């Protein structure tokens, strides 16, 4: 700025520091709690300095919540969801933007309307269909032909079950649609002049051009998928497919046990780390992804 405003600058710094305490304070609490012993963590007033039990607590949380497989499951789920969403978004938007059929409007609106059906409001029937994906198919076939099939596909307790129901993406499709719309028509015309088929054009030209979009979308979708809670919680009854977010709930100090907040916080710390790293390290892409999907 041009003018000198020392008092206002000081006030600005003061507010920003208070804000920083507000934001980082909880992180610091989680961290210090996870380094303390059981007695320290339950001391009143709370001691804001770290203790010496960090590794011990990390280990305890890791074993108690069985975080090894859970973190792996979360990682697999997050990566599959992320990749799936990018693929779906890019091809769906391609179908909407680069072809002229009246049906594309219907398709666009069908995708758009899913925004109004959050999981929370259709949770029981979604669970049912995940247990028996072909139920509507059987129903349709029976209604149409009177033939009864016993075709079944159960998604409960599988990676497909973790991924498929949350992979459809309205926001991703919008993002890609918007990106395609900003590309000049000349690009398409030139490609057509060169005799490129649509598939070639999509793979050779559009996808490479959308790299930045892809990265931006990837960061937000990874965070989104890693932080999924309700669906994995309902869907997995077998420990083999539990995700980290669900495993964390076993660390809540419960009725008949000691208030081991140090272990709880150590577990929370481990579980919140991957998305935090994404946001911290790839912040530019993450911000870009968020801002562009919501516009």
């Amino acid at each position, binding site marked *: 700025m041009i003018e000198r405003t020392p008092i206002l600058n000081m006030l600005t710094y003061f507010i920003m520091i208070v804000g920083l305490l507000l934001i980082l304070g909880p992180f610091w609490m989680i961290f210090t709690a996870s380094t303390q012993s059981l007695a320290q963590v339950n001391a009143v007033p709370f001691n804001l300095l770290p203790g010496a039990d960090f590794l011990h607590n990390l280990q305890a949380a890791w074993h108690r919540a069985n975080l090894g497989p859970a973190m792996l499951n979360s990682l697999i789920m997050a990566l599959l969801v992320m990749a799936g969403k990018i693929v779906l978004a890019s091809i769906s938007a391609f179908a909407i933007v680069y072809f002229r059929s009246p049906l594309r409007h219907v398709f666009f609106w069908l995708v758009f309307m899913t925004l109004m059906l959050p999981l929370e409001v259709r949770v029981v029937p979604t669970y*049912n269909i995940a*247990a*028996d994906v072909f139920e509507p198919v059987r129903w349709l076939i029976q209604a149409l032909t009177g033939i009864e099939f*016993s*075709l*079944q596909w159960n998604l*409960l307790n599988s990676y497909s079950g973790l991924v498929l129901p949350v992979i459809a993406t309205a926001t991703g499709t919008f993002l890609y649609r918007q990106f395609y719309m900003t590309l000049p028509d000349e690009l398409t015309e030139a490609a057509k002049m060169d005799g490129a088929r649509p598939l070639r054009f999509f793979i050779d030209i559009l996808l490479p051009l959308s790299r930045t979009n892809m990265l931006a979308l990837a960061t937000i979708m990874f965070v989104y998928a890693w932080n999924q809670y309700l669906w994995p919680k309902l869907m997995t009854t077998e420990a*083999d497919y539990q995700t980290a977010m669900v495993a964390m709930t076993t660390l809540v100090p419960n*009725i008949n046990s000691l208030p081991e907040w140090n272990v709880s916080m150590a577990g929370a710390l481990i579980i919140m780390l991957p998305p935090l790293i994404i946001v911290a390290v790839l912040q530019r892409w993450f911000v870009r992804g968020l801002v562009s999907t919501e516009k």
Partner: protein
Amino acid sequence: MKHFGVKFAAMALAVGLGATPALAEKVKFEFWHGLSGDLGERVKETCDKFNASQSDYEIVCTSQNGYPETIQNAIAAYRAKKNPAIVQVFDVGTLDLMLSGAYIPAKKLMEDNGYKIDWGNYFGGIARYYADSKGVLNSFPFNSSTAMFYYNIDAFTKAGIDGAPQTWEDVEADARKLKSAGFDCPFGFSFDSWATVEQFSAIHNQPIATKNNGYDGLDTELVFNKTKVVDQLTFFKKMTDEGLFQVKTAQLGMDVVPAFASQTCQMIQSSIADHGTIGKTIKPGTKWAVTMLPVWKGTERKNSLVGGASLWVLKNRPEAEYKGAAAFLNFIAQPDMVEWWSTVTGYIPVTKTGFDAMKANGFYEKPQFAGREKAIESLTYTPAGDLTRGIRVGGFPQIRKEISNAMEGIFFGKMTVQAGLDQAVERGNAIIRRFEKTYAGQTLN
């Protein structure tokens, strides 16, 4: 209508995503139960014993961490046709199961699989809870209990109290003495309707619902807002306000059993099933005892209600699993298993032969088990009457939630006792009406 069995390899679709389970030689089947902590470990041991006892079947026992959760998860799984073969359902969930059409009756299962069970061997009071009107068992009694009164003898001695409280008047007097002797929490209680509302009503011969607690029809209505339950909660509220009684719930950080075991509270009411856990977790050397729930002075005491749970066999499983399930249910009904189970937990034996075996072994004379016979005394104090044989009300698990909600309002909020109970009854009746409509046309058998 034609039926095509299309052998479609669904796994082909799931390649790369789904996991293929390894083929096991033994027939595996699942058993979901609601016990956790120490009792959960005991169930696990039971399953291990069964698996070690034979080589044809393998039972996989999974705790769902709580009775309400077990029935919820079993229903969700049943709707999705992924239910376990055996599920443990608590007492008040009995009617929900009975009308569901989702189970194979116990007697039929055992007959189909060639087991001869002496059904008369189950204690009458227990069996009646889980049987139809003709006395045929729908499910297998597994863990049976009743509510008891625990007190800390060391604390009593220190406060100069002699003997167990027999009446609630005694409890009040003892609480005052304990308080002046420096005990911060003389009596701890939670918002569990089982002891405070249901068992209290039974031993005071008060109805919980019309139509003999629902046994005579689905058109029953809750009435505990017009009975002695009102006085009882008013008494609890007064004592709480004076600091003599304290609320101990999981949400506040400590439930009644740990509160007693850690000697935070000197008196509690809880299931006889916790006898084993308390004995294991209380500081060694502490003197404590268990007795029947107190009654109000001048009350003619009735028998208390059978609590606990039974095992239901659900439909939708392959035939081979039912053979395994029958083998397991037969296994746990053997006298030596009944005896072992009752010893390591605090549950009362469910069969006469099991009980006899325990008596013959001098079980009840052993100091660490002393007091457990009081549970049987409480259950058989009088023959089970119309108001003391059980509760057969649809949706009762949800009604319990309404009761504990109302108690939260009464003890934490600004609700009066009457308003709280009225609310629980009104909302509970709505649940019953919905249940009645849902199963309209079905009669209680």
